[in-house]
C-alpha cells in the first residue's frame, strides 16, 4: 500500500490506488476550485492536468465579496462540464505520474496574490513555470512530505508538485497543534518539511528529537541563532535550507544560510537596480501585473560578492506586511475597513512580533457615532480572510501623518 495523502484534520487517508480509482469515476470538471479539503484541492489539480485545462484556485476562506472582486462571480456550479469517457483512466501509479510529468502546454493554474496597490492580483502559471524548480530523481522517490502550507497558495503548490511528480506521500501538518504535528512526523516517518518560520517557531521548545527528517526548508525571515540551534537539536539529521520564493515567480533561490547565490544558467535572468532585485519575465508566470521585460520584486538586497553574485535580503521596498508567512497589503485592508459605517479614517500598519514576525494593527478614527469593536470584527470576518484582519485595533482621535500629509505606516 502506498500512501498518497493523510489528513488528520479531515480524518482521511488516501492510497495512490484509491486516488486512481477515484479519478476513473470522476465524470465532470469545474475550472474553479474552492474547497477546504486538501484531498479535494489535490485531486482537482490532478484532474485539470490530465485534461490539460485551466484551473483557478480559490482560497477556501475567501468571502463572497472577495470572490466577486477577484473572479466576477461568487457561485461556480454553472461552469461544470462533463468529462469525455476514458480521459482520466490510468493503469497504475507509474502510469499516472508519467502522464502528469508530460502535462500539456495548454494546462495552466491561476491563483491570487496580494497586489501592491489594492485588490489581490491574478497570477497564472503553466506547467513549466510552476515546476521549474521541482527536482525529479530516484533519490527523491522515497521522500515523505510534511505539508505545512495552504494548498491554494504558491508555497503549497510548490511542495505539492515536488511530492506529486516524485510519487511521494503527503502528510498534512498545516493547521495542526504542535502536539499533533510531532505525532504525525513520528507516525509517518516524515523526511521533508517546508514551512514558514512561524511554523517552526511554534514547534519550539521541544524535548523530542525527530531523526527521520532529512531536510527542513523555510523562507522569508532569517532564524535567529537560538532558534537555529533548537532546530538543529530536534532535527539532528536535517539539512536546513532557506528559500526565496514569490507567488509571481515561485522558488528562485535556495541557500544554507541567509546568503543566496544563483545558478549560472539563471544569472542573466536577474538584475539589481538601486539595490532592488529584478527578475526577467521569462522566469515569471503570466500575470496582470503589467510586466515588461523585468519584474521589480520590491525586495531590497545587499550584494556580498559581485562575481559570482551572492547577496542577502535586507527588506521590502513596498508596504506589504509579512505576517506568519502571509503577505498582507495594508491598503487592501484599509479599503475594507473604511466601508464600515461610522469609520471616518483608518490606518493599517504592522508591529514586529515575536510569534508571527509582524502583526497587523489598525488605528481607527470614528465619526460621532460610537462603534463596537465586536461588531467591527465580525464585519471584517465576513469580508476578508482571517490572516488579513487586524489583531490589534485602537480607536484614536486622529491618525498620525507624515510631514507631506501622507498617513504614516511605521
Amino acid at each position, binding site marked *: 500500500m502506498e500512501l498518497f495523502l493523510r489528513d488528520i484534520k479531515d480524518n482521511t487517508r488516501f492510497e495512490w490506488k484509491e486516488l486512481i480509482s477515484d479519478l476513473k469515476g470522476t465524470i465532470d470538471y469545474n475550472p474553479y476550485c474552492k474547497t477546504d479539503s486538501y484531498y479535494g484541492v489535490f485531486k482537482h489539480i490532478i484532474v485539470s492536468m490530465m485534461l490539460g485545462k485551466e484551473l483557478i484556485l480559490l482560497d477556501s476562506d475567501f468571502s463572497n465579496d472577495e470572490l466577486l472582486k477577484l473572479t466576477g462571480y461568487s457561485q461556480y456550479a454553472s461552469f461544470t462540464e462533463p468529462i469525455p469517457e476514458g480521459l482520466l483512466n490510468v493503469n497504475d501509479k507509474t502510469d499516472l505520474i508519467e502522464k502528469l510529468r508530460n502535462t500539456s502546454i495548454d494546462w495552466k493554474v491561476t491563483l491570487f496574490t496580494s497586489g501592491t496597490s489594492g485588490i489581490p492580483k491574478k497570477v497564472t502559471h503553466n506547467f513549466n513555470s510552476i515546476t521549474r524548480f521541482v527536482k525529479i530523481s530516484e533519490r527523491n522517490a522515497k521522500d515523505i512530505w510534511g505539508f505545512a502550507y495552504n494548498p491554494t497558495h504558491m508555497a503549497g503548490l510548490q511542495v505539492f508538485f515536488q511530492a506529486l511528480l516524485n510519487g511521494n506521500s503527503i502528510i498534512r501538518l498545516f493547521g495542526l497543534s504542535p502536539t499533533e504535528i510531532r505525532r504525525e512526523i513520528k507516525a509517518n516517518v516524515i523526511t521533508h518539511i517546508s514551512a514558514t518560520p512561524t511554523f517552526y*517557531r511554534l514547534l519550539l*521548545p521541544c524535548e523530542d528529537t525527530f531523526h527521520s527528517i532529512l531536510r527542513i526548508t523555510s523562507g522569508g525571515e532569517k532564524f535567529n541563532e537560538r532558534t537555529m540551534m533548537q532546530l538543529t537539536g530536534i532535527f539532528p539529521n536535517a539539512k536546513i535550507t532557506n528559500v526565496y520564493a514569490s507567488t509571481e515567480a515561485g522558488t528562485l533561490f535556495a541557500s544554507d544560510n541567509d546568503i543566496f547565490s544563483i545558478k549560472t544558467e539563471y544569472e542573466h535572468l536577474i538584475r539589481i537596480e538601486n539595490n532592488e532585485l529584478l527578475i526577467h519575465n521569462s522566469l515569471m508566470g503570466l500575470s496582470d501585473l503589467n510586466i515588461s521585460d523585468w519584474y521589480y520584486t520590491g525586495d531590497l538586497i545587499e550584494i556580498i560578492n559581485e562575481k559570482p553574485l551572492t547577496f542577502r535580503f535586507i527588506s521590502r521596498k513596498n508596504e506589504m506586511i509579512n505576517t506568519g508567512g502571509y503577505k498582507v497589503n495594508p491598503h487592501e485592508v484599509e479599503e475594507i475597513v473604511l466601508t464600515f459605517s461610522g469609520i471616518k479614517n483608518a490606518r493599517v500598519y504592522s508591529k514586529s512580533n515575536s510569534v508571527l514576525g509582524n502583526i497587523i494593527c489598525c488605528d481607527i478614527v470614528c465619526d460621532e457615532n460610537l462603534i463596537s469593536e465586536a461588531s467591527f470584527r465580525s464585519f471584517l470576518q465576513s469580508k476578508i480572510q482571517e490572516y488579513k484582519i487586524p489583531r490589534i485595533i485602537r480607536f484614536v482621535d486622529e491618525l498620525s501623518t507624515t510631514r507631506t500629509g501622507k498617513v504614516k505606516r511605521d
Partner: protein
Amino acid sequence: MEQRLLEIFNTVLQNRGKETRTKISLKSNLRDDIGFDSLDLAELTVRIEAEYDIDIFENGIVSTVGEIMDKLKTNNGTFSKRH
C-alpha cells in the same frame, strides 16, 4: 494576576469568535487546552506586553500559563504593571 491573565485570554478568544473560559490553571497548555493558534499567540504577546512591558515569547514560545507567570514574575522580581 491570574484573573487579569484570564481576562486577556478571553479578549483574544473573543476577538476570533472562540469560546471564552471561566478559569485557567498554571498547567493549562496555551495551544492544546486554551485553543490558541499562532494568530492568537501573536495577539496575546502584544496585549501582555502592553500591560506588563515584557515580550513573553521573546526567547522562544512558552507552552503553559505557569510559564507565562514565571516570565512575568522574573521581570524585575515583581509584577510591574504599566499605567
